[in-house]
């Protein structure tokens, strides 16, 4: 039997695996990356929203564009990626078996990095196996990769970031989302993601679960009910929706089977069955490393940094860089990773109820209960100011690691400071020109431009708009509030699209002055 040998074998060509291979290759290693899929990049190419973070994390870039950059970087670094290659075993002596087509190959590495990512969790209810019940990942794959709508009328289960982001993407693809449902009493994901779905008019049902999917051969409806004490559904609270698709976004689990079979020391955590790793990502087996979601679920942004750290650690392990270089280069990466792990949604805060922001401002209870900030809650945040001329209104109310808005404004209107989880502050004596760069730069679509008295009694609201068809100047319709309900009539006065906005259009509507702090979405009247 012939065994091929490599410096470094990487399992998984997602954000973590590719980043590790790139960093190692830059140190002189010749890594080989195996991935079972037909395309590299993992889930990045399905992520069409703008990412959070700061510049060093590629914030405000859309996931698929980050994926493209990563592939170019990998090619430049000389990383060899083998696709359609399923690693079926990891054995003593750092040997792996890879299935490619109908053959099994044995490959040995001086080092191995397992970056197999995660798989979706499922829940079962009556009818959950019916065609039309799909994972949220399946929805993303169908619409964002294959350009096919997953369904026409969809109910989403799960209000974590995946459930929220995919709901929004479903609407962008032209599907109707009838409701977001979560058994938990509070919205799990970022408030800004919830708000952009809620203001389109999608109702949130927290403390609700799916009782059954209806249909004989495929889904034709769904029944949900309110969850009471002991996670039992309260009789009489059932609600029916006509839907053709039920989408499940109930969390992810690390795919650590290879590490477990290899005999790595494992840890059974709340977040899944994960390998025990040291700060460089090395498992309990010498020379076997692990990075990304397989070591615990986080974001793609953190997976990329973890990958880079492991790539450098592998380079050090194999003697390609010395102690000093390793320490210096890893330190930079760890600083970036640490920044992403701050704020209300940081791993150490999972499951905790946070009452106040870092600034000491009470969080919006309504945002957690219903997905939107109530009119009487909004004024207490530092990005929400009132003045005569045009100015930004930043409805960013939770401490999340994100700061592109601060750099977007060339006129110094917006300040976050060095702590990237701080809420953005609109500075008092700023000179807003209405350029709209902040509106387009906000990954959470939480920035609006407001101007009073553009004409007697009427003002203008400018909002981010990422749907088709794009309204035109002069179009009449209605303005919707943060809760998605009609607040008043509205007329489109301006629509701006620019390359720098990266497909976030700036839609300006005219509404009565007293509606300027209420109107947050526009619906054309046909």
């Amino acid at each position: 039997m012939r065994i091929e040998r490599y410096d470094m074998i990487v399992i998984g060509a997602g954000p973590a695996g590719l980043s590790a291979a790139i960093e190692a290759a830059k140190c002189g290693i010749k890594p080989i990356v195996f991935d079972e899929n037909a395309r590299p990049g993992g889930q990045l190419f399905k992520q069409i929203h703008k990412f959070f973070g700061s510049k060093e994390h590629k914030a405000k870039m859309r996931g698929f564009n980050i994926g493209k950059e990563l592939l170019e970087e990998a090619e430049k670094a000389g990383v060899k990626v083998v696709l359609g290659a399923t690693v079926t075993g990891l054995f003593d002596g750092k040997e792996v078996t890879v299935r490619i087509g109908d053959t099994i190959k044995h490959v040995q590495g001086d080092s191995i990095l397992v970056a197999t990512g995660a798989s979706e969790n499922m829940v079962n209810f009556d009818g959950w196996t019916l065609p039309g019940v799909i994972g949220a990942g399946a929805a993303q794959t169908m619409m964002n990769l294959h350009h096919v709508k997953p369904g026409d009328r969809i109910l989403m289960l799960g209000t974590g970031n995946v459930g929220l982001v995919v709901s929004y993407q479903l609407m962008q693809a032209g599907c109707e989302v009838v409701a977001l449902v979560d058994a938990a009493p509070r919205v799990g994901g970022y408030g800004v993601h919830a708000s952009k779905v809620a203001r389109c008019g999608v109702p949130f049902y927290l403390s609700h679960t799916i009782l059954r999917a209806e249909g004989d051969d495929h889904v034709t409806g769904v029944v949900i009910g309110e969850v009471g004490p002991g996670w039992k559904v309260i009789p009489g609270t059932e609600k029916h929706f006509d839907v053709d698709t039920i989408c499940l976004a109930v969390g992810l689990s690390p795919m650590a089977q290879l590490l477990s079979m290899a005999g790595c020391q494992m840890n059974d955590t709340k977040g899944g069955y994960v390998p025990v790793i040291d700060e460089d990502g090395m498992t309990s087996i010498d020379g076997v490393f692990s990075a990304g979601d397989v070591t615990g679920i986080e974001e793609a942004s953190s997976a990329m940094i973890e990958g880079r750290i492991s790539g450098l650690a592998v380079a050090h392990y194999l003697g390609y860089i010395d102690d000093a270089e390793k320490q210096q280069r890893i330190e930079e990466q760890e600083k970036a990773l640490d920044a992403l792990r701050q704020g209300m949604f940081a791993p150490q805060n999972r499951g905790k109820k946070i009452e106040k922001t870092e600034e000491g401002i009470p969080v919006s209870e309504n945002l957690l209960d219903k997905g939107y900030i109530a009119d009487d809650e909004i004024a207490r945040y530092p990005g929400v100011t009132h003045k005569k001329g045009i100015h930004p209104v930043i409805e960013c109310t939770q401490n999340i690691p994100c700061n592109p808005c601060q750099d977007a404004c060339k006129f110094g209107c917006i300040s976050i400071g060095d702590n990237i989880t701080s809420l953005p502050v609109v500075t008092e004596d700023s000179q807003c020109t209405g350029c709209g760069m902040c509106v387009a730069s906000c990954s959470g679509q939480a920035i609006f431009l407001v101007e009073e008295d553009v004409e007697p009694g009427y003002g203008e609201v400018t909002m981010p708009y990422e749907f088709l068809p794009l309204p035109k100047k002069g179009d009449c319709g209605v303005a919707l509030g943060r809760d998605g309900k009609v607040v008043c009539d509205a007329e489109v006065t301006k629509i701006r699209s620019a390359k720098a906005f990266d497909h976030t259009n700036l839609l300006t509507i005219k509404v009565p002055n007293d509606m300027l702090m209420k109107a947050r979405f526009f619906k054309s009247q046909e």
Partner: protein
Amino acid sequence: MKRIKNHPILGETPERKVVHFTFDGKDMTGYEGEPIAAALKAAGVMVHRYTAKRHEPRGIFCAIGRCTDCVMIVNGKPNIRTCITPLEEGTDVKTQYGVSAERNQ
């Protein structure tokens, strides 16, 4: 219409080559290289197979080749994951009953 022609972020869907295939003997069209499951979805086909014991319908579930719910008989071969198998000109796709193309086995 299930096909997305224009998308606010991804833009216009690129032109692809139309290919002909059969589903349970019926002529259908799809795009070359797209997953068989995507072509079926676009054509409104929801049921890919029926389970062996209880004859329950199954369709697309994970769409990335993990769950095996979407397997069908493709060019005479059963248990083909249609969500990750590219469509070609003349692909013959059949509903799978248990592991067979026949309803009563």
